[in-house]
């Protein structure tokens, strides 16, 4: 039971009194005006703060576990190191808020406004951030493992060394996001919008990576320093994909005529490429299991490129090119479809 009731809280805040370490558990503070309130280390577990105004409030180290904060106004609030595990923050306005090292595990931030928010080292594991606006947010070292970020806007966000493993980034906007060192193991990047920065750069903002739809001009760019591990990536027919990152244990499925370019800094380790695309290797490709490359219409290894793989040719035989200076340990085999009538 809370030590203060709603009226007392409002009165104290109005007077500018501090509510540090106050026990406000399960208190109904919905639509309350608590701008700039001093609530450091306050216990607000299970409190109802729906639509409350908390702009500039100090909630540092506060406990807000499973608090109901739907549509709350938390602009510029200090929530550093706050415990918001399981909190409901749908549609909350957290622009410019400080959520550094906050625990938001399993929190619901669907549609929340987090532009410019500080979320460095925040625990957002399994959090729901669908359609959230995180433009320019600082998510350096944040843990977003298994988080749902479908349709979220992360344009210009700092995701350096963030954990995005198994996160769902479907249709998320990553333009100009910095994902240097981010862990994208098993992440769903279907339809992520392109970025000019470290991870992705797309020709069209409406690009999707799904199987359906023919988007001949779509481009994907995976930049230096990014690591993609254990992912399965499917690219539509006609797509152009450039990899300057490290891909480990990934399967890349290419649509008809899709161009996969492994740039000079790109390394595909223990990977497999399948499909009737065009593969250009200027970096390094090491297969996981044979054949590592299946059915390409065209395979080119540039000077300085390295290919260690068995290549199963396309049914109509693959067009090969190897530049002087390429490094190869390649076994070429006929298409399984043609093996009966293969060359002898």
């Amino acid at each position, binding site marked *: 039971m809370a030590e203060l009731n709603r009226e007392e809280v409002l009165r104290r805040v109005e007077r500018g009194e501090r509510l540090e370490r106050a026990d406000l558990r399960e208190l109904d503070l919905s639509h309350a005006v608590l701008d700039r309130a001093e609530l450091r280390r306050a216990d607000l577990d299970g409190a109802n703060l729906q639509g409350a105004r908390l702009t500039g409030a100090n909630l540092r180290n506060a406990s807000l576990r499973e608090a109901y904060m739907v549509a709350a106004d938390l602009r510029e609030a200090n929530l550093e190191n706050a415990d918001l595990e399981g909190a409901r923050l749908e549609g909350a306005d957290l622009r410019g808020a400080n959520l550094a090292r906050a625990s938001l595990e399993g929190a619901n931030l669907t549609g929340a406004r987090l532009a410019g928010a500080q979320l460095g080292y925040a625990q957002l594991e399994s959090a729901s951030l669908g359609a959230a606006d995180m433009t320019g947010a600082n998510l350096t070292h944040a843990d977003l493992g298994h988080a749902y970020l479908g349709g979220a806007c992360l344009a210009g966000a700092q995701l350096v060394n963030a954990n995005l493993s198994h996160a769902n980034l479907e249709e998320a906007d990553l333009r100009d996001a910095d994902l240097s060192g981010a862990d994208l193991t098993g992440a769903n990047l279907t339809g992520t919008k392109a970025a000019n920065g470290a991870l992705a750069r797309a020709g069209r903002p409406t690009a999707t990576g799904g199987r359906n739809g023919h988007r001949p001009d779509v481009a994907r760019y995976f930049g230096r320093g990014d690591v993609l591990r254990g992912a399965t990536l499917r690219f539509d027919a006609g797509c152009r994909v450039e990899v300057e990152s490290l891909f480990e244990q990934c399967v890349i499925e290419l649509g008809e005529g899709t161009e996969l370019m492994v740039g000079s800094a790109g390394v595909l380790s223990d990977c497999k490429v399948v499909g009737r695309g065009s593969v250009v290797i200027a970096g390094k490709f090491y297969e996981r299991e044979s054949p590592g490359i299946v059915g390409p219409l065209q395979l080119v290894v540039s000077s300085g490129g390295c290919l260690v793989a068995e290549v199963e040719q396309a049914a109509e035989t693959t067009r090969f090119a190897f530049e002087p200076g390429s490094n190869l*340990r390649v076994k070429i085999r006929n298409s399984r479809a043609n093996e009966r009538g293969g060359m002898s």
Partner: protein
Amino acid sequence: MTNVTRMGLPTPTVGPAPAVGPAPTVGASAKTTLIEDDTEFKGTLSSKCPVVVKGAVEGEVNGPSLHVSPSGSVSGKVKVGELRSEGTLAGEFDADTVQLAGTVKNDTVIRARSLEVRLAPASGRMQITFGQCELAVGDVPAKEDAVAVASGRPVEAPTRDTSEELPTTVREADRVATEAETTAGGPRGKPRRDSSNPAAP
């Protein structure tokens, strides 16, 4: 037309070979070992002159260079400094530099320091058709090193994946074979590169 096999005789020219780059113009005084069209040669052919095959050769070929013309085929074991082929290859080929077009048949192994295969135009005829074959070309960096570099981790000492490494030049293969015979006192074992001298020759 009279088909001839000229060995070590002057040959005026060797025809152009657009798929594998311009053929060297052989001067009137240059000597070439030539296996002409519709000529079959079986056995071991060792030459100090460039070897040009327009017919068919089955067996072993050793020489400074081998040019297999579009009508030519070579099947067997070949050790040359330079290999250019627009014809048909089958067997085991060791060369410093290789330019390939034409056809590479099943169960063929090509080892080289440098390989060039030009890309055919998408709508045009295939420059090269590969059967089931193996290509061992250049030096392949160890996967662990490549991953370390790509992930920004320091690479402690330069290493190379030598587990499947094959000699990539004729001279190197010969040297390895000699070493193997010297150390084993017997026939040539599986060749391994001497990692202390990776740039040899």
